[in-house]
Structures are given as C-alpha cells and as structure tokens.
C-alpha cells in the first residue's frame, strides 16, 4: 500500500502557503546548477516550470512530443483565466475565488491546495502582463474582465477568444529565452515512453525521438510531468488529436498512484457530432454563455426551424432551473441538463443530440458589431464547421469531453508518491475536485509552473546530494529501455487487420456510453468486461505498418491507444467503486428527485488513489481523507 501523506501545512487556511514557503528547505544558488531537472511537456505548466526553474539556476532538460513547445494544447483554451484581482470592485476576493472553486469542484478537492491557487492567481496576471500578453483592455487602458460559470463576479481575464494561446505564447517566450541562453536543453519531437525509478526515487526517463525513432535514456535529480489530461480516452473530445496519457500512465505503472480517474469534465457547449468519420469535437467557449441563451423546444419531437418556434414554446431550461446563475451554471450541471432535455426527445438537429445557444437577444440588445467584437472568431469557427451563421440562427451545441480532473496523485508540494516525481497542471489531480470551473485550468497550469514548483522542488532537491543522480547506464535504465523496445517490436510484429483508429473509436464509444455523462453500476460492470475483450482484440489484430526507425504516426498512436485501453478500464473501476454522485461523476443511482448530484461525504469524502499491482492484476484503491477544516461540505446550490 502506498503512503499518501498530503503534507498540508498546519495553521490557518490563509497562512498555510506563506508559512510553508518560509519553512521548506532551500537550495543555495551555487548548488542549483549541480541539479538536473527533467520537465516533460511544455504546455502552460511545463513551459512555465521549465523557464522558472532555469531562471533560478537549475539545469533543465525539457521534452515535448510536438515539433515545437508552442503547439501544446493549452494553446486552444478560448475563454479566459480567473484571478482574484477584484479590479471590477464587485466584491471579489481570494476567499471568494477559493470558495467558488472548491464549491464548483463539489467539495472533492483539498482546501489548502485550492486556497493556494486562489492566492497566486493574482501574481499570474501580473506575470503575464509583464511578459507582454495582450489581454483585453478598456478604453482607459486598464484590464477588462468577463464573467464565467459558477461565479457571481467578473474575474476572468481574456485575450479575445484566444486566451490560452496568448498565455502559452507568453510561457513559450519565457522558455525560448532560457533555451536561447543555454539554460534549458529543449528536445522537440520527443515522447516519454517510460519513467526510470532508482532506489524508489524518480531519476530519469526513456525518450523516443518521433522523427528518427532513436530511443535514449536521460538521468536527472528530479522529473516533472506536465503532460496534460487524458480525455482522448473517449476518442472524441475537444482535446488535440495528439493529447495522450502515455507519460502519466507509464509513471502509474512504475508505482505513481492515479487519483480519481473517473472525474472527467463534459463541457456543455461544443459543436455536435456530425458523422462517424469525426476525429475531434470543437468547443464553443463558455464565455458565449455571458450573452447567449440556451434553450430547447418545450415539445418533444419538434422539428420546426428555430425561428418558427414562438417564445412561448421555448424552454430556456437553465434560466428556469437555476434562476440565480442562469446560463452561467457550472459545466457539469449545464451538461447534464442538456442531456436530460435530449433524453426527453427535445433535442434539435439531425441527430436529436443538440440544444440551441441563441444570440438573438444579445444582437438586439448590443447590436451585431458588438457581438462580433466579443465573439467573432467563435462565430467564424462555428460557420467553418457547420456552414451555418450564428448571427442569423442559433448555434446547435451538445456536451463533449473537455478536461480530466483526475490525474496522478500529488501532495501539497506537487510531488507524487514516488519521491522526485512531480506532476503539474492537468496531469495531476489536485485542485479541481470533481468538476472544474471555467477559466481555472489556465490558472492552475501557470500557478503550478511559475509559483509553486519553483519553491517546492527545492525542498526535495535539498535532500539529494549534488551529483548523486545515477548514470544512464544503471540497470534500471537498461530495463526501462528494454521495456520500451519490446513494446515497439510487439506492435510492429502483430501485423493484424485493423488500424489503430478502429480500436480507439470502439474504446471511445464504450467510455462515452458507460462512463460518460451518466453512469450506472450495470453499465460500468459491462464496460469492465468489454474493455479487456477489446484489449485482447487489439493485442491480437492491430495493424501497425512501417518501421520503428522513422517517423511512424501509426506506431505513436498504437502506444497511446494501448495506454488508453488500460486507463479506460481503471476509470470505469473508479467510477464503479465511487457509489455517489459528485461533480462530473454522475451515478444514476445516486441523485436527488430533481436530478442533482447526491454526494455521500461520509463514505466518499476522500480521494481514491489507485496503485498498480502488475499486468492483469486488480489495482489497489488507497484513500486520502479530505479533511475540511474551514469550509463545510454542503449541497451545491446554484438555484
């Protein structure tokens, strides 16, 4: 059994982080350059961590599977980033942001982590502006804000509909500066395929160069994974096609615990699926819910064009059900409401899986030019994909997989249960509980990279003797490399009948049907039969053409889908064991009469951290109790 010591500092909530920073160990400047740190991933969390650590004087090696760090999928975040600046004078505070985030997560996150996130949120905005991130501004030159779901204040900073892009390019510029200065050794087209654990501590990685196929060993004093979420286990999602769980999954297989894998976020406003060839779902930013009104026909089976449905026959169901938050209800709640409407036969579009997001009122109130200025690029995206104009007719939207709150277990220092292995951003589990509020992912990624890891990694490294990292010739490295080579050879030798995509699509369908927006005991039990069967089929009949010593995209995908097959099974196991509903995890057996989540704090007020036991063996479920010292776990109410 793994020991899960959260290492939450003692003392009042608002003092914990400050106190911790003054108490943890430091590494003196002359010693910093003697430590080598590996950072895997260069999205918001990875780039900000790599550049900040290099700026402190650590030797940093950064690996990204993309051809450039600027391609990481943080770039696609549209809406914004939260910060408790209270620039609007509307009553915001660190405490409110903390409370909203904790409540939004349905009381399944750690109090101390969330409070720290809210505290450093204000530094992030300062940091990004100093880097030249062109946030939206008012005519007076001050920063503008908008509202996002789950909050009653305007605390979201944004750069048109491309906030993630601008924040990532800011972090990328910081990283580029350190690469140019020789302080970061950047390896692009480089995928981590194994974690090397020596003497119980994370001391290196095995990397495959995706262009040449070369496999190399890299030793270090500490390893940071900032490799993002695992939503592509569903095949169809708003993730990039290349987003994968391989780095965290291989770390799991080396002993890192996987926490709350069943907590996935289904985003309410995405463009509906149009056909089975589809590779990707496109998000329509939550910011649209500031001005767009969501509705469906009152009558089931109403196939009239939206304009032909009179006001009296429309159901603005979010406004009706959640009058105080209206269209800005949190994502999990808005998604389930859309599903219920469609399950009642009131869905729109050719598939019946869609509801309207209507801007007619906003256009009437503000005029088309103002709406175009706020959301023009999103309306353009919608038009490209559907060939429909959202200025003339309402958008059709449906929920889609968007984010994973679960991830590798980490303590307050962001270190996993394997000493020396740190996990940042979406790849860890720590801050969003069972549901993430909008504009919080960017906040967490940058908080972890700029303002948490630079402090906490020192506490670990101070206990490591400089120069003590193992040589890359150590037997653990050889074994890990052999492991990677073995898998590659197996994939290429199978020479089956079906392309990798066939299995990914099938897995995605199982996951969406059984472990998607609504889950049942029977469905999850069925999935736990179906997934192993699919894995067997994959192992026996996958067709991976080409060779291992060149760019081979089928081979890359085969490794990722193999990991998704394992991870999908663990997600279903986690969802089956968690006999309650909370946030994005909705078990039909556990709901209030009005369809809201029914939590069971007594039995499940904890983190479930799964521990690998070996191929084909049932993993062990460890728990970390969530002790709420300052907040009362209560029933979420957005009505």
């Amino acid at each position: 059994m793994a020991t899960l010591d959260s290492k939450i500092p003692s003392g009042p909530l608002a003092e914990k982080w400050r106190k911790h920073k003054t108490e943890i160990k430091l590494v003196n400047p002359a010693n910093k350059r003697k430590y080598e740190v590996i950072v895997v991933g260069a999205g918001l969390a990875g780039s900000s961590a790599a550049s900040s650590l290099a700026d402190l004087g650590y030797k940093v090696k950064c690996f990204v599977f993309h051809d450039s760090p600027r391609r990481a999928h943080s770039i696609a975040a549209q809406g914004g980033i939260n910060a408790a600046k209270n620039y609007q004078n509307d009553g915001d505070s660190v405490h409110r942001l903390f409370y909203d985030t904790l409540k939004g997560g349905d009381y399944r996150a750690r109090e101390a982590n969330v409070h720290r996130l809210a505290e450093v949120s204000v530094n992030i905005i300062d940091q990004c502006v100093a880097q030249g991130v062109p946030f939206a501004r008012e005519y007076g030159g001050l920063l503008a804000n908008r509202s996002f779901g789950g909050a009653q204040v305007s605390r979201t900073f944004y750069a048109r509909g491309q906030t993630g892009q601008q924040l990532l390019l800011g972090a990328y510029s910081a990283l580029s500066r350190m690469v140019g200065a020789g302080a970061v050794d950047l390896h692009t087209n480089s995928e981590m395929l194994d974690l090397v654990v020596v003497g119980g501590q994370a001391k290196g990685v095995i990397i495959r160069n995706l262009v040449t196929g070369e496999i190399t060993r890299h030793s270090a004093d500490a390893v940071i994974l900032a490799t993002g979420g695992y939503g592509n286990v569903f095949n169809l999602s708003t993730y990039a096609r290349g987003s994968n769980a391989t780095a965290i999954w291989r770390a799991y297989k080396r002993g890192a615990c996987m926490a709350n894998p069943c907590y996935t976020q289904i985003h309410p406003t995405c463009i509906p699926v149009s056909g089975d060839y589809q590779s990707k779902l496109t998000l329509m930013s939550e910011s649209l819910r500031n001005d767009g009104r969501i509705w469906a026909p009152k009558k089931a089976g109403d196939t009239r064009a939206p304009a032909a449905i009179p006001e009296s026959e429309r159901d603005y169901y979010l406004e009706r059900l959640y009058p105080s938050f209206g269209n800005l209800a949190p994502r999990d709640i808005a998604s389930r409401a859309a599903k219920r409407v469609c399950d009642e036969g009131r869905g729109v579009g050719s598939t019946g899986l869609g509801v309207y997001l209507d801007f007619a009122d906003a256009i009437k109130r503000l005029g088309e030019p103002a709406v175009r200025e706020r959301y023009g690029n999103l309306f353009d995206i919608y038009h490209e994909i559907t060939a429909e104009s959202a200025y003339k007719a309402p958008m059709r939207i449906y929920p889609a997989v968007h984010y994973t709150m679960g991830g590798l277990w980490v303590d307050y220092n962001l270190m996993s249960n394997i000493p020396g292995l740190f996990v940042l951003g979406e790849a860890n589990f720590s801050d969003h509980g069972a549901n993430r509020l909008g504009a919080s992912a960017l906040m967490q990624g940058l908080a972890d990279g700029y303002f948490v890891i630079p402090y906490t990694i020192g506490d670990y490294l101070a206990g490591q003797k400089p120069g003590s990292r193992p040589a890359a010739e150590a037997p653990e490295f050889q074994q890990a490399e052999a492991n990677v080579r073995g898998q590659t050879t197996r994939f290429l030798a199978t020479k089956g009948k079906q392309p990798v995509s066939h299995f990914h699509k099938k897995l995605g369908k199982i996951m969406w049907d059984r472990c998607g927006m609504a889950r049942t005991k029977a469905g999850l039990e069925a999935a736990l039969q179906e997934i192993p069967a699919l894995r067997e089929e994959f192992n026996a009949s996958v067709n991976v053409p080409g060779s291992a010593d060149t760019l081979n995209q089928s081979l890359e995908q085969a490794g990722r889908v193999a990991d998704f097959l394992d991870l999908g099974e663990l997600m279903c196991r986690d969802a089956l064991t968690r006999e309650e509903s909370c946030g994005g995890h909705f078990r039909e057996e556990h709901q209030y009469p009005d369809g809201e989540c029914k939590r069971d704090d007594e039995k499940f007020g904890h983190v479930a951290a799964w521990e690998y036991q070996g191929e084909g063996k049932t993993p062990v479920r460890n728990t970390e109790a969530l002790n709420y010292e300052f907040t009362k776990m209560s029933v979420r109410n957005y009505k």
Partner: protein
Amino acid sequence: MVAASTLKTFSVTLRVWRQAGPAATGAFVDYPAKDISPDMSFLEMLDVVNDELTAKGIEPIAFAHDCREGICGTCSCTINGKPHGPGKGIATCQTYMRSFNDGDTIVVEPFRARAFPVVKDLVTDRAAFDKIQQSGGFITARAGSAPDANALPIPKGDADLAMDAAQCIGCGACVAACKNASAMLFVSAKVGHLGLLPQGQAERDRRVLAMVNTMDTLGFGSCTNQYECSAACPKLISHDFIARMNRDYLTASLRSAFKPAPANTGGGAA
C-alpha cells in the same frame, strides 16, 4: 436543421507528395478518396484514406496535425498550390470537404521552403521558427518580479493592434506562400506585438536586431513586398507589420551604430 450539403457524398482523387525521409527523393502519388462527406474536414478525409491505405498494406501518408481547430499551427499542407488550401483566413485543419467538388483532383504537398526541410511526406521541420524566437522573441520578465498588472495602463488601440499581431500561430504558411521563402511576416508579427507594448520597450532594439539577424542566417529569403504571406496567413496578419519592423530595424541599426550595442544581443539572461 441540416445543412443541404450533408445530403450526399462524393469522390475525389488525391495527388499526394510521398517522400520516405529527408534524404529520399519524393514524388506525387494518386490515391482515390471515395464516399467523402462534405461535412468532413480535410484532415478527417486524410484519416479515412490512411485507414484504407493501412488495410491495403501501404504505409499511410504522414501529415502534421494536432488541435484540429486552427490554433496550434501544426498542420501545414499546401493544397492545390495554396498553403492551407482554398479558404481565406483558415488553416488546413479548418478546411472542409464542401470546398471541393465531385471528381476533383486535389494536389497535396508539404510547405516548400529551404528553411523547412521535408521530414516525411507532408511533414516539414519548422524548428527555424523556434530558433528565431529563442534569439530575442520575448520580454525578459522573471517570475516573481512583476509589478501589478494595472500599474501600467495600455491604450486599448495599442493592445488591440498588439493582439492582431500576437495571433500568429507559427505555422509557416507565410514562408511557404512567398516566392523567396521569406519569414518577414512571422518575425514582424512577434516584433510588432512586443514592440507595441510599453513592457516591450526595454529590449525593443536588441529584439528586432537579433531576430532579423537570426532569420537571415537560417536560410529564409528577403521580402519583395508581394504580400502573398498575408493572403495565405490563417490569421490574416497584416503585412503592415513588415513595414513596422523595417522601421524598427532601421532605427535600431542606426542607434546601435552610434552607441555600443548591448553586450548580449544573442538573447537570454544577461
């Protein structure tokens, strides 16, 4: 409500550049793409064709892609002679098959430029862009030392114009579209974005000098003001930024001629 175009499928012929590796000789090869839905994206059509090729024992076509929503800048094909295909202001991944007709032959090739060597098939190596960024495409701002974000008001017009330039996705279409394979639009977008902001003033001269000099050493050609770059740009970044950069470069060169240049124009922490 179903768009009329979803009602029937059609077929096209793909004429695709196949090249096994950087040193190999490439050639166009024709493949049929049958029963294509007009609602498919261009890349989804390539997915379908690739699965068919795999089934036939032919190695699938390597193509660069990731976000598939026009923001990551990974996708990079030249379609029918136009970088990112026929649509204006969009990337290849945002190109939908409804832009083509039944029976069309669609020519697909990698971005062609000396500074972007072909890796395989439609994939090119655009690391040169990263090298330009590393030489000076940043504002030095160490985490922890930033003043309050509202301490420095920035006129909305300046911030908006900076954002117009900052939207660059780093795809390289501007280079592929230019007969000289010039990277002026890419470099000027970064120089313009940072140079328009008050935070960017301290390093303004060294930035433009370093980035332009690095660009010149990496094999990109010169700008001859034909503006194919901004026409091909998926974010429609204006070539006005090139003029702005030329002005910055000239001023910075003059200033550096009359006073010693900063010690470390090569970028990085001094």
